[in-house]
């Protein structure tokens, strides 16, 4: 048997052993994975999907389009001289390897490795810089499993945007995974914009390994799906590496979104920043768990985490838990979470300048969320997200005028 098949079989065995997470599992206390148990079957036949007009149309970028988890050659447009291939084209067993004791690894992730049908294998050579963003659009109307791998060579740079959209009314699950390796001095800006439909569920794992002086910027935007869970695991393995993790959830109805993030400071002189903000309306429920582990040798660690939450409805719920574990003294860490309504003093200030109460509330809500997006380097992506996010707010229709600087 080929090595790759063995690796996939091992992943399947791992899934069979650990199964789906249960509520007894501390990391799944608030998210009911059993709701997804009926959505694990992958059908052999691919339903047709019309993806015309979907996604960020005015973004000047290289594109890869996945339809129901399968690379659509016709709609894709790749940079020259960069190794970007369908996962099916390269038989690299390493891309399917999982380790059961990796942080936050769960049954969905094991299943992903065992059953992934396709994905993008992106490999940037040393010193190569992508001159335009790479936009990966996923459109689906059935269960899908996607597995991306990104490797940036020394001092390589890229801006990669993953966008998830679903069409149709059927219940379905997207199980997506992205494994990233950043070599010395590499810089990756990586966005995941989850905008799937009401009946959809989404489970994701992003695993990042950073080598010396590399930097990683993440933007996790959660707008869609009824249930969405992401595990984001970053390992700062060599000196001078830095990560900047940004999350924005704008939820309504009965949406449930859960991000568990884990940053391992393994090497000295590494920096981590984390800023998560949620805006919760109706009966939506958000879970944020941000764990930072400062290992024994990781002196001069500099870590800041902040999580802010605004509840627009008294039925909305947030469970937030910043966690810090430090195994040496020579570190600088600041972590905190806030939950609240909008600030009365700010509201009064705006109203005293002639802004109506409703507009003042919208403006403050917008400003609160937009601070997270300020770190996005591409303004087309940022405007798209702003517009889509604010269309979800109670008075979002009037917000267009507020978007400009």
């Amino acid at each position: 048997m080929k090595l790759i098949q063995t690796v996939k079989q091992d992943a399947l065995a791992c899934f069979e052993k650990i199964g789906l997470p249960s509520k007894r599992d501390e990391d799944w206390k608030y998210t009911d994975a059993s709701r997804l148990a009926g959505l694990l079957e992958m059908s052999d036949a691919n339903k047709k999907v019309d993806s015309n007009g979907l996604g960020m149309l005015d973004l000047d970028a290289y594109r890869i389009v996945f339809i129901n988890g399968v690379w659509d050659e016709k709609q894709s447009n790749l940079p020259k001289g960069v190794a970007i291939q369908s996962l099916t084209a390269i038989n690299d067993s390493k891309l399917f390897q999982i380790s059961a004791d990796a942080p936050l690894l769960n049954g969905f992730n094991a299943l992903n490795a065992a059953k992934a049908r396709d994905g993008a294998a992106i490999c940037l050579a040393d010193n190569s810089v992508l001159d335009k963003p790479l936009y990966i659009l996923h459109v689906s109307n059935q269960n899908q499993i996607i597995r991306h791998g990104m490797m940036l060579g020394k001092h390589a740079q890229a801006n990669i945007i993953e966008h998830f959209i679903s069409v149709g009314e059927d219940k379905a699950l997207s199980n997506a995974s992205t494994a990233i390796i950043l070599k010395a001095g590499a810089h990756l800006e990586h966005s995941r914009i989850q905008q799937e439909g009401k009946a959809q569920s989404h489970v994701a794992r992003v695993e990042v390994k950073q080598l010396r002086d590399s930097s990683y910027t993440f933007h996790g935007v959660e707008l869609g799906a009824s249930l969405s869970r992401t595990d984001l695991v970053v390992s700062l393995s060599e000196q001078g590496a830095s990560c900047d993790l940004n999350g924005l959830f704008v939820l309504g109805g009965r949406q449930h979104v859960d991000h568990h993030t884990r940053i391992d400071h393994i090497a000295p002189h590494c920096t981590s920043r984390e800023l998560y903000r949620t805006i919760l309306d109706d009966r939506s429920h958000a879970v944020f768990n941000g764990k930072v582990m400062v290992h024994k040798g990781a002196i001069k660690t500099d870590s800041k985490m902040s999580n802010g939450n605004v509840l627009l409805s008294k039925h909305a719920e947030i469970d937030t838990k910043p966690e810090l574990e430090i195994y040496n003294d020579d570190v600088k860490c600041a972590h905190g979470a806030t939950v609240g309504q909008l600030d009365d003093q700010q509201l009064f200030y705006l109203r005293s300048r002639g802004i109506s109460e409703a507009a003042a509330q919208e403006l403050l809500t917008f400003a609160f969320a937009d601070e997270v997006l300020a770190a996005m380097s591409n303004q087309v992506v940022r405007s798209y997200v702003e517009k889509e996010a604010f269309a979800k707010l109670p008075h979002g229709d009037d917000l267009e005028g507020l978007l400009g600087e």
Partner: protein
Amino acid sequence: MLEIKDLHVSVDGKKILKGLNLTINAGEVHAIMGPNGAGKSTLSNVIAGRDGYEITSGSVTYKGDDLLAMSPEERAWAGVFLAFQYPVEIPGVNNTYLLKAGVNAKRKHQGLDELDAFDFMSVVKEKAKLVELDPSFLSRSVNEGFSGGEKKRNEIFQMAVLEPSLALLDETDSGLDIDALRIVAGGVNKLRSADRAIVMITHYQRLLDYIEPDFVHVLANGIILKTGDKSLALELEEHGYDWVKETL
């Protein structure tokens, strides 16, 4: 323009204003002085429409209307402006945007067309000069990271752009060094006009050296205890507030 009659205000059950009377006409400049905690900010906040104050009796009439029945934004549209003692920082809300939204909301209320972006910017730049506000502040978030003095300057800049009929300046001079005080006071003087009334709350005579008031009031014991001309401020400086209480 503004007529306050027998105003009683409590905060958290504590009586702060106890039958205050005050009349202010267009074109006048008033100074209100008084010990810390006397209720000066309470008075200005009540006029601007801030929540959290219990108005147990009395009336406030502004241009013939019942001011207390109006929302804060309606008061702003009608020309009431408060320069805050402690201007709040609003990260993510652009200073210029705030003013544009404020000006246009007021114009809309008056049945005027919105200003176009170009006209608005030229107004803003001209007014920024009035208080020598560095143009870089225009594109920053409201008060975010401003020093104490810059916040106060920004308040007067906003006043210049919003062109109120009744401006309440709550300790605008506190935290200003002598140069900044001169500049801000100069800006306020340029904003004096026959159809505008200005009420300055201050602890210090030095502001009144720059902006000469028509009336000086002492707010103490929950009322306007004494009213005089600018010489009252000099006497206060010399003898303190207890002197007022004793002379009565």
